[in-house]
């Protein structure tokens, strides 16, 4: 068993043409090529995908949970940002 850990990678998989890549989990690998192969072996064994992205976890910058108040709560009271205050004209179909 190795004592030094390989870098962590985040895995994103697209399940079908036209759908977005979705985060499915993470894994360890020494480099990008083997990260893709490991992702194939760990996350697409049951035909879950047709395309894989891997990103080294260290390259992902995330919001701080402590900032949630100032980052996200202010938008809770801005209901006017949802386009629900407009009358749809009679001539418009498929809305």
């Amino acid at each position, binding site marked *: 068993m190795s004592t030094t850990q390989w870098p962590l990678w985040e895995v994103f998989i697209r399940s079908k043409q036209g759908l977005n890549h979705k985060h499915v989990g993470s*894994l*360890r690998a*020494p480099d990008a090529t083997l990260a893709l*192969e*490991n992702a194939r*072996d*760990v996350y697409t064994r049951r035909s879950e995908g047709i395309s894989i992205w891997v990103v080294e976890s260290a390259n992902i910058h995330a919001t701080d949970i402590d900032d949630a108040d100032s980052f996200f709560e202010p938008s809770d009271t801005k209901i006017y940002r949802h386009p629900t205050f407009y009358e749809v004209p009679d001539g418009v179909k498929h809305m």
Partner: protein
Amino acid sequence: MQDQALFEYVLRLADDSLILGQRLGEWCGHGPILEEDIALTNISLDLIGQAISLYDLAAELEGAGKNHDQLAYLRFENEYKNVLLVEQPNGDFAMTILRQFFFDAFRLPLYEALMQSPVSQLAAIAAKSVKETRYHLKHTSEWVIRMGDGTDESHERAQAAIDHLWRYTSELFYEDNKDEQLQALEQVPSLKGIQANWMETVKTVLYEATLAIPTNNWKFEGGREGRHSEHMGYILADLQYMQRAYPNMEW
């Protein structure tokens, strides 16, 4: 007997797949890292899946009313025709990967050629297996390059594995009069062409991995004729236990 020759040919392919699949299965739960544990057992299951299709075809050619389980589990050691390479112990990770690499580099061009075989079932099995094998070779090649061109220790272990396994590689290209019969009918490719292709792959990958090809010409052969190394009996004891203890059992 053309059917007899083809039966023997398919049995060799099936036995190679089964025994190597069984060996790789020994890594289950013991891989050097979770991701590679799954990768090795994925390859194992691919090989066992190929073995099932090949035994089905062999059973049909034999015409003795057997099924794939009976061929896989109820023969004696000298009736298995796999090469000695695939029965060699897993050793360390380098040994397992190099064994797999030498095998994959042989199997890929063989399956590519068998896809053209007029024996339609064999061509169909080859067409399905070639995609799996192409991935196996890619994966093992990547590892050989990383170990060879990695740390001093990984280089040393990879070179030790090559030096040990090299003596078993010539048997991959063993041919006898059964092969010649089938080749005359253009049902199977000559292994000389496959060997040239194999050598090209091995040279390219080992060069990139900064690993050396051994210069000795020791050859260990016998598996194709049913003469196995001391390891085979232990593999069969594991492999056959269930079917011998509970005859005709199915999963």
